[in-house]
């Protein structure tokens, strides 16, 4: 994995000790993405979609290619099913707003207690606008979706199901096939913000209708993301934002809209970040995903084992490696998560502490804040050693 580290410019820049285990908040940028972003912005910049000069034409071609790349990355049926956005939060808000007119009073939106706020608040807004109701799949004490509760939660009024593919706190991977099967009539959105860096995505195999992800969590630049949608669904949806590029004809007294995906891409897109995201996706797809997965699981096992040797640790999430990814949240008894993270920072270990934008989960598990270590392909045994050693010192000093 030394070779992989070399593909991430930050490691050279930061020197050592630099144990970056805050990948679930944002991952580091891979060199191909840095190159694509920088090259576009400094040597080839032009606006896309409407230009006739060489630079504009080249930018448009590159942008179209990025769409095809991202379509392949998630297993879309066609590039036109890919809508570029500024990130997962924007993607989910777009989906929620475009679906809002379909909701009627008494309809239900099914979320889960595992969701990130970005997959909760937009649906609350949609529900509130239409008198619909938000329900949530509960979590088990080890931070998994409690799918046994599903039959009671899904009914004829369940119009929308929005669930995470991979929890940003517990690291649990959702069993999407069970959820899809339980609510075959509902429109199903999957929040793939965390999944994108941790495993392959196949929207057609999942059978979902919408899929959201962020560039910055999958080794691409900040400021870009995507919403994938089934074409027949996209065609039936109204636009979300109004502006340039999403129209067919504008008069002061009314407007006709363009076809998907353009209908949903108002204004100048984050072109540089989109090109960087596509470069990151190609980088990920050029790796042997099996090797990446095995590496992640081995290091995850080391974290779980290491924490298990320390006193007063409460793990938030699956105890074993089954059905989880390398995102490990934990509590140190009587020590606040921010103190854990701050002391670890003194050891060169970057963690995140807090509610991780998942307050309902915290509440369900009776927690206020946790510390979280999250892995990426460039992490190595040294990172794990520093983490476990650091947590040991925290316990010694602060508990």
């Amino acid at each position, binding site marked *: 994995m030394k070779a992989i580290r070399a593909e991430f410019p930050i490691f050279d820049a930061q020197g050592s000790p630099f144990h970056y285990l805050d990948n679930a908040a944002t991952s580091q940028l891979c060199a191909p993405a840095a190159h694509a972003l920088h090259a576009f912005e400094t040597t080839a910049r032009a606006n896309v*979609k*409407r*230009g*006739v000069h060489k630079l504009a*034409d080249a930018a448009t071609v590159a942008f*179209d290619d990025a769409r095809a790349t991202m379509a392949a990355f998630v297993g879309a049926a066609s590039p036109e099913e890919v809508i570029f956005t500024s990130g997962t939060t924007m993607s989910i808000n777009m989906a929620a707003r475009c679906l809002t007119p379909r909701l009627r009073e008494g309809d239900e939106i099914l979320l889960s207690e595992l969701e990130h706020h970005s997959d909760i608040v937009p649906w609350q807004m949609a529900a509130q606008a239409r008198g619909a109701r938000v329900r949530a799949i509960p979590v088990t004490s080890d931070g998994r979706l409690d799918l046994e509760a599903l039959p009671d939660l899904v009914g004829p009024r369940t119009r929308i199901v929005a669930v995470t593919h991979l929890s940003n706190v517990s690291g649990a991977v959702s069993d999407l096939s069970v959820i899809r099967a339980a609510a075959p009539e509902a429109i199903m959105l999957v929040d793939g913000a965390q999944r994108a860096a941790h495993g392959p995505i196949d929207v057609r195999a999942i059978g979902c209708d919408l899929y959201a992800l962020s560039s910055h969590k999958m080794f691409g630049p900040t400021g870009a993301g995507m919403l994938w949608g089934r074409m027949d669904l996209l065609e039936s949806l109204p636009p979300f934002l109004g502006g340039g590029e999403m129209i*067919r004809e504008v008069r002061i007294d009314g407007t006709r809209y363009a076809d998907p995906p353009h209908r949903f891409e108002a204004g100048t897109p984050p072109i540089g970040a989109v090109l960087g995201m596509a470069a990151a996706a190609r980088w990920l797809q050029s790796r042997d995903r099996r090797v990446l997965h095995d590496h992640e699981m081995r290091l995850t096992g080391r974290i779980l084992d290491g924490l298990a040797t320390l006193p007063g640790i409460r793990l938030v999430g699956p105890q074993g490696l089954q059905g989880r990814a390398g995102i490990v949240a934990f509590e140190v008894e009587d020590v606040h998560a921010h103190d854990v993270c701050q002391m670890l920072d003194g050891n060169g270990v970057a963690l995140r502490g807090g509610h991780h934008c998942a307050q309902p989960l915290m509440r369900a598990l009776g927690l206020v804040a946790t510390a979280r270590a999250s892995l990426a392909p460039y992490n190595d045994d040294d990172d794990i050693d520093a983490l476990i050693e650091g947590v040991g010192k925290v316990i010694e000093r602060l508990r």
Partner: protein
Amino acid sequence: MNDLYDDALVALAKAKDGAGRLDAPDGTASVDNPLCGDRVTIDVTLDGARVDGFAQKARGCILTQAAAGMIARHAHGLDAGDIEALRARVRDFLSSAGDGADWPEMALFEPVRTVRSRHDCVLIAFDALLEATRKARDERA
């Protein structure tokens, strides 16, 4: 300057073959290019399933006008299936594969290959022809 504008291409556009409207078309279609607001309108009459009478009105750039003029020269005798196949071949031609339509003027459009944003300028004339011919056919059925 730009080799897109070969004199022969400009001449083809300026010749305005088939320019005008038919008095009693069997089918008519207008297609816009949302990029620039250009519009091609094509009228056809059919003999059986095949194009007999033809007129075009191209409000647009040289490429659109030249494409409409080229079509005017060769549309006679084509049916909707022919046109659909032709349109696909021209699209492929522009994306750098294949020879396009079997027409001598086709070569004039070769430089357009390198400018993806202008491909639609050529294609909308084919779109309009296809739509007009289909409408005429369906009208009769």
